[in-house]
């Protein structure tokens, strides 16, 4: 067994009075993929920041090839060949792909930049990732999955000895994930040490050599990946036995509560029609870019479209989020950081923003708001350090719960949830699944959009599949299988499957 290239010895980390890491040992060996998993808030990010030179540990040592080091800055760490790829991209949107890949280590020819060489090198790096975007394209015009590829290309271009990847596949489709994992495999073969985090445990067992599990800042498990099942990893993360991840499905009633007829959102969705029954959980599946989000945004008035949307038989005014909300129809965005929550504001103001009129006569009733926050804490199991903290300081899972609480405060009858569990740990996932199924049982109707196939299959009693802006088909009951969804999503069979 080879020696570790980068290791942590007895690391503890305090933020103010709060300890987030407790005596953690960790090591990365050349040519291995070491997966670091744990729930949100378990301390993964902190540990990665320490490894990547962003953060000085409060106690303990960082060892580079057995010798204690202090990275004074990110630059120091990068000079030592330690590269970190962030979950939230660190790309300058207004610069080109090439400029981003070479940012901070530009190639020069005399006094001028050598654009030609940098473009050629960028193209070569991106092609290794099967990503064929033009290096001169502005990053703001590049799709989100491709931005991830740019981040990785940037790391590849720096000859990383240690690569720290923070949930690299969170925004990738399964095909893109395959390409990414191939690259990780190639890096491993070349002797790079890779630290890999993901909430997708199937990926972890596919790619990792070793797995370390963190829980509440403690290392609770470290083992070879081949000795672990996904179930075992999940249980170690949560610290309790996990029974069924998905609750029993509710039986939809006969009454139709939402009917969408011939809705077209220019540039994204063409002639979509479907309906939703009371007490139903309807899944929306499809590849990234199939137009699911845009369709829902068209329905709730966030995008202009043509066609009609009927709630309980009555058409609602198009183009007005407020009208949709008043009809009992709300949409919970997939992008909680940019569209869902005001990260710089406190929890109370976030919670009541959507339903503020319920708390207002002439002035806002701050006491009622506070009571609503107390109820939301309890009902949605939001764990916040204190009530006055900013929403941006909550962990991802708690942010998602806050967003749910905010949406439910509007007392909707129909809830559209876009990617309900993106970037969320398995324990919180289970809570959110239970919540969705309880909503349906209470006679509300839920639409769940998800790129995680198992989620759609596990939750929905009927699934609508979209492909290239159109509704490709519907699947019901026992016919909902991964295979059936994929066929429709890839446009292999355009049949209107099994619908009466």
């Amino acid at each position, binding site marked *: 067994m080879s020696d570790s290239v980068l290791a942590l010895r007895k690391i503890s980390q305090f*933020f*103010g*009075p*709060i300890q987030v890491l407790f005596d953690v040992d960790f090591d990365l060996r050349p040519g291995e993929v070491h997966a670091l998993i744990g729930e949100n808030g378990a301390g993964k990010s902190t540990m990665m920041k320490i490894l990547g030179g962003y953060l000085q540990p409060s106690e303990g040592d960082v060892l580079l090839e057995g010798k204690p080091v202090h990275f004074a800055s990110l630059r120091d760490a990068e000079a030592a060949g330690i590269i970190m790829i962030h979950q939230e991209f660190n790309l300058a949107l207004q610069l080109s792909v090439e400029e981003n890949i070479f940012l901070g280590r530009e190639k020069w020819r005399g006094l001028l930049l050598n654009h030609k060489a940098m473009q050629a090198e960028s193209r070569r790096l991106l092609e290794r990732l099967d990503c064929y975007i033009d290096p001169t394209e502005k990053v703001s015009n590049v799709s989100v999955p491709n931005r991830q590829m740019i981040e990785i290309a940037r790391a590849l271009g720096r000859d990383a000895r240690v690569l720290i990847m923070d949930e690299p596949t969170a925004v990738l489709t399964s095909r893109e994930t395959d390409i990414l994992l191939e690259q990780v495999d190639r890096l491993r073969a070349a002797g790079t040490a890779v630290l890999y985090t993901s909430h997708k445990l199937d990926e972890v067992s596919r790619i990792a050599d070793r797995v370390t599990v963190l829980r509440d800042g403690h290392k609770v498990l470290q083992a070879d990946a081949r000795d672990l099942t996904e179930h075992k990893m999940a249980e170690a993360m949560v610290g309790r036995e996990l029974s069924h991840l998905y609750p029993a499905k509710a039986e939809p009633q006969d009454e139709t509560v939402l009917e969408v007829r011939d809705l077209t959102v220019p540039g994204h969705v063409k002639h979509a029609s479907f309906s939703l029954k009371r007490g139903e959980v309807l899944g929306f599946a499809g590849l990234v870019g199939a137009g699911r989000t845009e369709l829902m945004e068209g329905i709730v008035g*966030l995008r202009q479209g043509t066609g009609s949307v009927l709630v309980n038989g009555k058409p609602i005014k198009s183009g007005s*989020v*407020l009208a*949709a*909300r008043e009809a009992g129809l709300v*949409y919970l*965005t997939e992008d909680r950081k*940019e*569209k*869902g*929550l*005001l*990260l*710089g*504001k406190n929890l109370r*103001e976030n919670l009541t*923003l*959507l339903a*503020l*009129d319920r708390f*207002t006569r*002439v*002035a*806002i009733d*701050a006491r009622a708001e506070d009571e609503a926050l107390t109820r939301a804490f309890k009902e949605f199991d939001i764990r916040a*350090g*204190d009530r*006055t903290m900013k929403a941006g*300081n909550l962990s991802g899972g708690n942010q998602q719960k806050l967003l749910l609480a*905010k949406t439910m405060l*509007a007392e909707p009858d129909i809830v559209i949830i876009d990617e309900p569990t993106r970037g969320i740990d398995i324990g919180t996932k289970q809570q959110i699944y239970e919540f969705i199924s309880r909503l349906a049982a209470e006679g509300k109707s839920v639409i769940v959009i998800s790129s995680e196939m198992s989620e759609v299959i596990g939750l929905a009693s009927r699934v609508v599949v979209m492909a290239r802006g159109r509704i490709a088909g519907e699947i019901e009951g026992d016919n909902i299988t991964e295979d059936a969804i994929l066929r429709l999503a890839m446009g292999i069979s355009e049949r209107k499957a099994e619908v009466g």
Partner: protein
Amino acid sequence: MTEATMNTQRKINLRRFNFHVLGPLLALIALIILGALLNPNFLSYGNVTNVLARSAFIGIIAIGMTFVITAGGIDLSVGSMAAFVAGVMIMCMNALIPAMGVGIPLIVVGMCIALLTGFAAGMLNGVLISKVKIEAFIVTLGSMGIYRSLVTWLADGGTLSLNFDLRGLYRPVYYDGLLGISWPIIVFAVVAILGELIMRHTAFGRHCAAIGANEQVARYSAVNVDRSRTATYVLLGTLVGLATIMYVPRLGSASGSTGVLWELEAIAAVIIGGTVLKGGYGRIWGTVVGVLILSLIDNILNLASIVSPYLNGAIQGVVVILAVVLQRERKTAD
């Protein structure tokens, strides 16, 4: 969390709290003490009334500006707008003398014209920004030039003067008051109190902050972004009209140089008061303090002959920059 950590946490909060919230107030108190030490007349009734009444114009405008900036906007046109409103008001009143005669009704009509002109000018800015989606900076830079040029044109390059008899009748609006407090001060106080209540305790204030913090989140939270944003400019325009009503009786005239640089003074007051320039957070009482700080610097330099009053602008500039540096939130570890 244990008792000890709770206490530390509270202490940390308290420290940041004080600095952040009370900074402008402490600066104001320091200025008052300084002024009183330098000149015994500083705290006299005459001087205090004078400073407050002069602050009122910029103050009323700055309160409107606080809403605009909180919602992520900016309005560079307010100084020109004030001159334009004053010009239109004076011309209309003069023109109406034959029909209405010199009397209180004509003054009331004049006031209504000022408010309506301000309302319309604000509406124009707001619609161009919200509906036509042009950058606030560009729109108001444009309208700044337009209003300034229009008033110069209306005055034919000279001065528009209110009819002499009418001026006599209108004078008390600036010079008189209630219980020894002049009207501009009373109006300023009322606007400030209402503004604080609206900003802090109504849905409109909350929506302004939400739009300034993240427009997308506001849109996804069923906030009518366009309407709220337009409303901030309309409110500001109307307040410019109100300030002009107080300003016209002071001199009884308007010209191309009326209200020059008021926009920058108003914006500076807002920033000194702790409102975030890029939007998302605003406080009215801070703006009031900001206005007073700027006026007091001017007043102290004029009273005490230590530093030349010509350096007024430089000192105010330093204060603006210092205010922003001191109020910058330290990055919390997370």
